């Protein structure tokens, strides 16, 4: 797919107290930004279970944006640091799964930073657009299809892709 016409689908996780309010503020101020991010409200970035990111990526998201309060400003005192620690380990694991580090991004945005939220969203969408679609497990059909649909690679003996056991 041509990356310039590619419209990424992105899941965004927001903290109820800062970034979700920042998105509200961006709305109230009618700031226009890229429509590709679909938000999920959590109470805190500390609630972010890496499972959510993996699920989003495996179910069709091209990128995941995680947002939280600035370091030191967490509504729950310090839980955003815990999100940061998880995020950094998750990125390492994702790298091992062949996922570009840029597909999952942590952004700090306070409740007052509607403009920042809008700008960061648009920026992230552009970054993902450059990376192209992720299409986890579906670009080339999932493993079920490999066998069920009998792709040439497996059953066509003349194929160069023949990979016998």
């Amino acid at each position, binding site marked *: 797919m041509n990356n310039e016409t590619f419209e990424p*689908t992105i*899941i965004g996780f927001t903290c109820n*107290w800062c970034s*979700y*309010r920042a*998105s*509200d503020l*961006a*709305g*109230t101020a*009618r*700031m*226009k*930004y890229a*429509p590709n991010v*679909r*938000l*999920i*409200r*959590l*109470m*805190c970035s*500390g*609630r*972010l*279970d*890496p*499972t*959510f990111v993996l*699920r*989003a990526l495996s*179910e*069709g*998201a091209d990128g995941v944006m995680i947002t939280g*309060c*600035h370091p*030191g*400003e*967490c*509504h*729950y*005192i*310090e*839980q955003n640091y*815990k*999100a940061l620690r*998880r995020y950094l380990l998750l990125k390492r694991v994702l790298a091992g799964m062949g996922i570009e580090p840029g597909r999952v991004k942590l952004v700090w945005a*306070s409740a007052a930073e509607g403009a920042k939220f*809008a700008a960061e969203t648009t920026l992230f969408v552009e970054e993902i657009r450059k990376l192209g679609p992720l299409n986890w497990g579906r670009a080339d059909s999932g493993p079920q299809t490999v066998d069920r649909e009998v792709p040439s690679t497996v059953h066509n003996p003349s194929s160069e892709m023949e990979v016998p056991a």
Partner: protein
Amino acid sequence: MTERVGVYVCHCGSNIAGTVDVVDVANWAAEKLGRQGVIIAREYKFMCSSLGQELIEKDIKELGLTRVVVAACSPHLHEKTFRTAAKNAGLNPYLVELASIREQVSWVHSDKAVATAKAKAVVSGAVSRVIENRPLEEIKVPINPNTLVVGGGIAGIQSALEIANAGFHVYLVEREPSIGGHMAQFDKTFPTLDCSACILTPRMVEAGTHPNITLLTWSEVTNVAGYVGNFHVTIKKKARFINEELCTGCGICQEKCPKKVIDDVYEAGLGYRKAVYTPFAQAVPNFPVMDKENCTYFIKGTCKACEKFCPTGAIDFNQQDEMLHIDVGNIVLATGYDLFDARRVSNYGYGRLPNVFTSLEFERLSNAAGPTSGNIVLRDGKTTPKSVGVIHCVGSRDKNFNNYCSVICCMQGLKFAHLVHERTGATVYNFYIDMRTAYKAYDEFYQRVLEEGTLFVRGKVAEVTNAARNEREKGKLIIQVEDTLAGKQRRIPVDMVILSSGLQPRKDAKEVGKMFGISCSMDGWFTEKHPKLDPVSTMTEGIYIVGCAQGPKDIPSSVAQGAAASARVLDKILQKEVALEPIKASVNKEMCSGCRICNGLCPFNAIAFIEDDKVTEINPALCQGCGTCVAACPAGAISGTGFSNEQIIAQIDGLLLRNLEVQEAV
């Protein structure tokens, strides 16, 4: 069981309908999300109107809806409205979800097709999520009627008195030996020029003698546990080395004490006190404290002059710090401000050039009870200045220091100009960036000072120097400034410079905030729940902030906030119990392995390890619902209500429209 879901798409006039094809969204939901349980999808002009709400209530009753999705504005605006509507119709309020298609869609996107598509995805996410919602009940906890007020400045005093007068008990804790705060240091207060002591002292005495107030000075809060209605507070009552039972406050100990110490607090470094002292004559309580660091006996082991002369034998060198444990239902923080350290603006020469003074120094200089008995003199202690420059915005509205406006400095600068003029007849210059004299009778005061002949120069002072360039400047302090009204550089030689220093958060504001479970803004002031509509509450229920702890403000505003917080506290006390959001984490004991990974994660101490059972438990009353432990539990043994894994996973799938594909594949 299949849930019966109703979807309601709001036009919000043209706010949503102008950008999102709401009819299409509703039709799409009815058609595509039918298999998930959507049995009705409607659109309506204003869902939040009473007619809109009735529509939902009617459907709940008549169609037997078990779940409701309202696609409208942000949940922060109307979640409560629609939850109440559901409750009225007999549906558990937590079975309602809002899909924000205004703040997140119509207001921020322009292309109608794109916006409509996104709105559908947002609705789909909400439908998937709401199916996983579970009925929740609000948690009610009783309120302890006692209140803790931290900080005995005017805001704290006011707050304590209001609550005490209403008949409830207050613990008023103050770090210094006496209550009174910064206001006790002032001579006059703007704009009325009332004598500060005259209006403050009666309040201090009232607080000191009120039967409902336990006054704890020379004391600090060291630990706070618990939650709204049920805080457990530890207070360190520092040793005074004075037996309060025996002390009569006669003052002989201070008189006899041979050790003179520069008083950095009350006299702002401009005067002296003794090693045993009451900071000022009207101190409340009137018991002195012994300053261990400077007391000759504590340093060298001999002296005890105070003990020899004390007529009642109240000196007790063996006194120890005492830890008090109290239970309170609400806490008011009135911890005040620190003065901006003017030495940081080195180009104004404070600390280098003797005749540059800070605002607090000048307050003491002009105070009849101050070190010069109210004579405004230079640092040599005798010369009366003939010309004085007052520099505004020192450390405020300055990218190098603090970006914010310190609010009080303009009026304070005008007050200084007036006092200098009145007492010395000196020529006074005020250097300002903008004149900010909002509020009642403030601008009139400005006019008055103008008429008195004070000269105003608009411009930020570049430097104060004693490097004279000509005879006229010799021996003077030269203020170099760009006069932006005249459009020229000026060098104005004066005898004295007063820096109208800004206000800063207390040095330890961050740690204090952490202890009480509240956050600070970027600038370091405590963060209020809502800057306009809820300025004295915080995000932590039961903790209120008043006075300068919340941000720079003058005396009238501090007093107003003190009273406002008391009203909030009384409101809580009179409700007798408080409802907590049922967003809580809980541990499945069967699954908990006691690995203790979650144990270090909770800043609210809600997580406790039960040694006997080797499992972890969460105290629902302490739990604030952030969900960090839920996300952290490696065994998946912790679940969270309101934001469960099932809800969020379903919402992810819904937002990605995976719910449709799965169904269509069926």
